[in-house]
């Protein structure tokens, strides 16, 4: 197939990617959008296989079959609760592919150059260095994120003295190695040195980040994987890689910004130290809770629920950990059967990846129009009879409304404390990720239902039935 024709098909693929991403903006069109994206990818792959540049097929076919088998297996066997780590892992594979492709192309070009063709130009060398750097950071960063989310590694941020200095030095070393590659592309070992330093950088950047900041990290790595693909596009002078890569890069950056805003933190603050580092104020915790916390029983909550007309459920990561979503759905159905209006209030950073709670609740067949964003649900709390907080903590902490003094100061929160009654389902009074006490637990209108999330909701269901 001629190169011109190939490029036309690449253009069609790129258009399908854009239309597909646009389709993802509404639940009704999202399935079709995703299918359009995959058709675009299939077109791009087929037309590449037919192009004159491909001279041998066996290895390609082995690779495609092996990759497809692994991909299908992972995608079908994964539990919805494990979605954040899977997305993280897939990100990593994309980054690794960019590193390897740029490396292979560099070696090929250097071999040709020694055979007499002119040496590579600046576009090629800069793009190669960028692919190696960003791709390796993406791969190793994603692996660490995966390990943390999967529980292979502690979710706690790993902090040490001189951390920031170490990170800055390694980052500078990576950039330095990149510049070296640009000016001496003939020495291919320099490329692998760059990849090595960048890998270390990826590990260091993510290892210092704690569980609750994962939504930001996953979104950022998503962006990196796109940028790495675009850089590889510049290496190969291939438009479909550049377009698809930059679309994904832009989308990841937008998500990262949304996540940062939802935490009232800057990206630099997340990456270079921040929450979870030092807990300055342990004082006040005792006073705050002493004699004010009201422990309740499922029966008491069920009694209050009998007179409730509107209930808002606020889920957090704890719901996922306790695997309580099925029980929550059963409770929702039971309440609705008795004429109670039930909605869900979902904080943008609840869970371990953007939109995590929505996926879990959607899997339980809870209609998406009941899943309300923070801005939609907040005005409704004053007219809500009961807010049930399950497994969420920092995102409902009224201390965030104060301008300073805590790591979460200024973070937008769900105003559950404005509901008539607040029931907090939680194992203990232990602080959330931010490491600060939550005055909500001691508020006059708050009842604490201590226990495992799933167990507590199930008991509540049977108490309500009686």
């Amino acid at each position, binding site marked *: 197939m001629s190169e011109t024709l190939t490029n036309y098909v690449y253009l069609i693929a790129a258009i399908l990617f854009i239309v597909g991403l*646009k389709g993802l*903006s509404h639940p009704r069109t999202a399935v079709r959008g995703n299918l359009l994206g995959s058709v675009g*990818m299939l077109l791009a792959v087929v037309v590449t296989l037919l192009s004159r540049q491909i001279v041998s097929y066996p290895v*390609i076919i082995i690779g495609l079959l092996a990759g497809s088998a692994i991909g*299908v297996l992972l995608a079908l066997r994964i539990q919805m609760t494990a979605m954040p780590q899977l997305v993280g892992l897939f990100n990593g594979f994309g980054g690794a592919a960019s590193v*390897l*492709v740029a490396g292979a192309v560099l070696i090929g070009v250097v071999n040709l150059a020694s055979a007499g063709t002119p040496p590579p130009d600046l576009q090629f060398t800069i793009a190669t260095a960028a692919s190696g750097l960003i791709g390796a950071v993406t791969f190793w960063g994603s692996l660490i994120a995966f390990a943390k989310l999967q529980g292979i590694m502690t979710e706690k941020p790993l902090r040490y003295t001189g951390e920031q200095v170490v990170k800055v030095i390694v980052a500078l070393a990576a950039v330095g190695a990149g510049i070296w590659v640009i000016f001496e592309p003939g020495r291919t070992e320099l490329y692998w040195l760059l990849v090595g330093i960048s890998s270390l950088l990826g590990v260091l950047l993510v290892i210092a980040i704690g569980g609750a900041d994962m939504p930001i990290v996953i979104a950022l790595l*998503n962006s990196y994987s796109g940028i790495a693909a675009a850089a590889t*596009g510049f290496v190969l002078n291939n438009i479909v890689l550049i377009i698809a890569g930059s679309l994904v890069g832009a989308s990841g950056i937008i998500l990262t910004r949304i996540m940062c805003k939802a935490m009232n933190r800057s990206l630099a603050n997340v990456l270079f130290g921040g929450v979870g580092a030092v807990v300055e104020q342990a004082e006040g915790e005792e006073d705050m809770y002493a004699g004010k916390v009201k422990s309740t029983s499922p029966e008491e909550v069920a009694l209050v629920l009998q007179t409730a007309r509107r209930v808002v459920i606020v889920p957090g990561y704890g719901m996922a950990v306790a695997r309580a979503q099925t029980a929550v759905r059963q409770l929702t159905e039971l309440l609705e059967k008795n004429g109670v209006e039930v909605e869900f209030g979902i904080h943008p950073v609840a869970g371990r990846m953007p939109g995590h709670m929505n996926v879990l609740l959607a899997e339980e067949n809870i209609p998406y129009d009941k899943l309300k964003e923070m801005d939609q649900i907040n005005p409704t709390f004053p007219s809500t009879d009961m807010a049930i907080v399950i497994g969420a903590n920092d995102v409902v902490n009224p201390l965030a409304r104060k301008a300073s003094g805590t790591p979460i100061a200024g973070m937008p929160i769900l105003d559950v404390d404005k509901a008539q009654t607040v029931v907090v389902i939680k194992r203990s009074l232990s602080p959330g990720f931010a490491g600060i006490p939550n005055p909500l637990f001691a508020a006059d209108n708050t009842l604490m239902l201590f226990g495992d999330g799933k167990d507590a909701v199930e008991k509540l269901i049977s108490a309500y039935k009686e």
Partner: protein
Amino acid sequence: MSLIGVITIFALAVFVGFEVISKVPPILHTPLMSGSNAISGITLIGALLSAGGERTTLTLILGLIAIICATINVVGGFLVTHRMLDKFRKRGD
């Protein structure tokens, strides 16, 4: 293609990306991430070109691993996104 040509395409694509994505509602953020993630597996095209073209043993091995990684990214990404989006259909849709 000339350098200015590819840079123009790059810059415009970034803007298209910003415009298209900023309208995605929070409830779809996870599928958006995994779907766009699958698209970033477009590096597969590069992997195919480097494994299938003129090569040495080393570039062949690098190309093969790259194809496997990118295919996992693409196939797994689109499939898992489809699985998730299926759950977002309204009851009775």
